[in-house]
């Protein structure tokens, strides 16, 4: 269940010692993935309002001062479906002790390679949520749920990783006419931001469905917001409307 990278995602089982050739290949993928003006540009652009929403909600929840250096020091976070680590790295710089998991071995290799290059410490593992032990202060699942087969089972596994009193952050695509027009026709066919077939509109999740599934898993949704693209300024901004791409913030009650 990797994110938009699933076109690249292949499972290379048992790769423990990477050859020079493989390192070079990971470098090439990492370079492409992390080139914020290259083919993954929209992913980088959407990261800004995403990180802003994450930092704002998490600072409020944990009572942290966002203007401090490394405001989230002392908190643990797991990013489920971390891809190349586009969110893991900034969150680690903000002070979180970050674990990043992805089912795609290659994604994890790329993420590891880049974090090392940037001097950021992150615990990356090729795994699915049910394979992880322990509990975290924050569980992140961004742009993953629209790719999984059994939403309830997936969210139960996510919730199991969350400490009581911890925060869950999710993001996905809404199942609306507008999201079909923008995310499928627009992003995959017209603008070619994503490879065709990246998304299956029928698997998109309405906020009401996401919220209900989380409640079953023991997580109470506290906030919902959207992002939208401003073509004039070539920027993604946070908006109230959750018609297309939305972000959700939830809490696992103490008892």
């Amino acid at each position, binding site marked *: 269940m990797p994110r938009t990278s699933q076109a690249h995602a292949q499972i290379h089982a048992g790769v423990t010692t990477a050859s020079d050739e493989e390192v070079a290949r990971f470098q090439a993928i990492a370079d492409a993935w992390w080139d914020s003006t290259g083919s993954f540009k929209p992913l980088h652009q959407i990261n800004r309002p995403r990180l802003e929403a994450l930092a704002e909600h998490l600072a409020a929840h944990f009572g942290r001062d966002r203007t401090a250096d490394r405001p989230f020091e002392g908190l643990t976070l797991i990013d489920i479906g971390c891809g190349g680590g586009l969110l893991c790295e900034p969150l680690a710089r*903000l002070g979180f002790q970050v674990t990043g998991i992805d089912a795609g071995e290659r994604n994890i290799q790329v993420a590891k390679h880049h974090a090392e290059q940037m001097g950021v410490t992150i615990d990356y593992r090729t795994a699915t949520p049910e394979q992880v032990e322990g509990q975290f202060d924050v569980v992140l699942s961004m742009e993953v749920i629209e790719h999984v087969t059994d939403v309830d089972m997936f969210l139960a596994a996510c919730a199991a990783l969350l400490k009581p009193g911890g925060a869950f952050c999710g993001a996905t695509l809404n199942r609306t006419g507008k999201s079909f027009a923008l995310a499928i026709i627009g992003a995959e066919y017209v603008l070619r931001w994503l490879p065709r077939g990246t998304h299956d509109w029928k698997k998109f999740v309405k906020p009401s469905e996401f919220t209900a599934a989380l409640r079953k898993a023991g997580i109470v949704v506290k906030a919902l917001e959207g992002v939208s693209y401003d073509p004039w300024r070539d*920027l993604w901004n946070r908006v109230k409307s959750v018609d297309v791409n939305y972000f959700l913030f939830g809490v696992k009650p103490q008892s």
Partner: protein
Amino acid sequence: MTELTADVLVIGGGLVGGPLACALAQSGLSVALIDGEVPDATLAPTFDGRASAVALAPQRMLAAIGLWPHIEPWAAPIRHIRVSDGASPLYLHYDHREVGEDSFGWIVENRALRQAILKGIARHGDKIAFLAPARMTHLARNPSDVVATLSDGRTVRARLAVAADGRGSPTRESAGIGVTSWKYGQTAIVCTVAHSLPHGDAAQEHFLPAGPFAILPLTGQRSSVVWTEKAHLVPAILAQDEAAFQRELESRFGDYLGDLTLEGPRFSYPLTLQFARSYTAHRLALIGDAAHGMHPVAGQGMNMGLRDVAALAELLVEAKRLGQDLGDAQILARYGRWRRFDNLLMLGLTDGLVRLFSNDVAPVKLVRDLGMAAVNRLPPLKRFFMKHAMGTVGELPKLLRGETL
């Protein structure tokens, strides 16, 4: 070999690089600031005889980053601006009351600005590593960081390098960023005069065929003179003895401020216009004169530099609070988009002004005099020009609105 690590490396601790370092440090970013000069030497009366206009919006930023209290005692407000064309009886009068502000801006001697900036840098000593005098011999811009090597063997590692090293910016040159430039064939003679009558907080701009002659109010009964002259005449003018030089000056200055006394040395600066073809490269941003240099006619050089500072500081502080890589290409692209158009517009305006006024061609003179008279009689148009000069229009970064980051 000592290695220093910072979020941002700023090359050049002058009138633009210094404020950037202070703005970033105030918001918690660590800065390594490199300057080639001995800091105290930049305060000598012989180092820089110019004064700079600080418009209203950049002043708000200087206040927001804590520099203004150190500048204020040396800042003379501009409450009136009078523009005249040669011997023509028509002139343009801008009055601060028409825009409802206490003043359009301030004139501050660069020496006072440098002193205030050094105080600001010292106050942020925990966040700013001020390396001066230091000479950078090499700047490596790597995939994940930049590393500057200094002549004494020390190295500085940061995520982003910012070049604030002036018109001839060696950093810009070695990054291979070209500039478009042209010479005006004019040189500015700059000197300070004391006068027996008060200036009444008025700035005078007298357009003479050789170029604009500006009298800018300083604190007390003093003014800064920016006398633009045809370049080839300047060596002879400067070579004259004090009495002869003063006679030449008085013939242009007039006697409306009473008797004049020259204060301090005379300086001269050849005038050019230039703009960098790009404001950014891999892990590098250009600000101030390194990015754009303009004719001093409208007093906008430092102001445009401070606008660069406000935009870049806002983007970098946001990125830091989001945990992003400060040298990310997206952030640099946003900086370039934000500043290039604004700066080109001002370069175009000042260039147009200089070309329109620096001649004595009768039909051109008639048109510009009628234009000035028309602007004088059309309050909305006049307010539009005044607000532009004050820098309060456009999509303003927070610091230019006086907000902190």
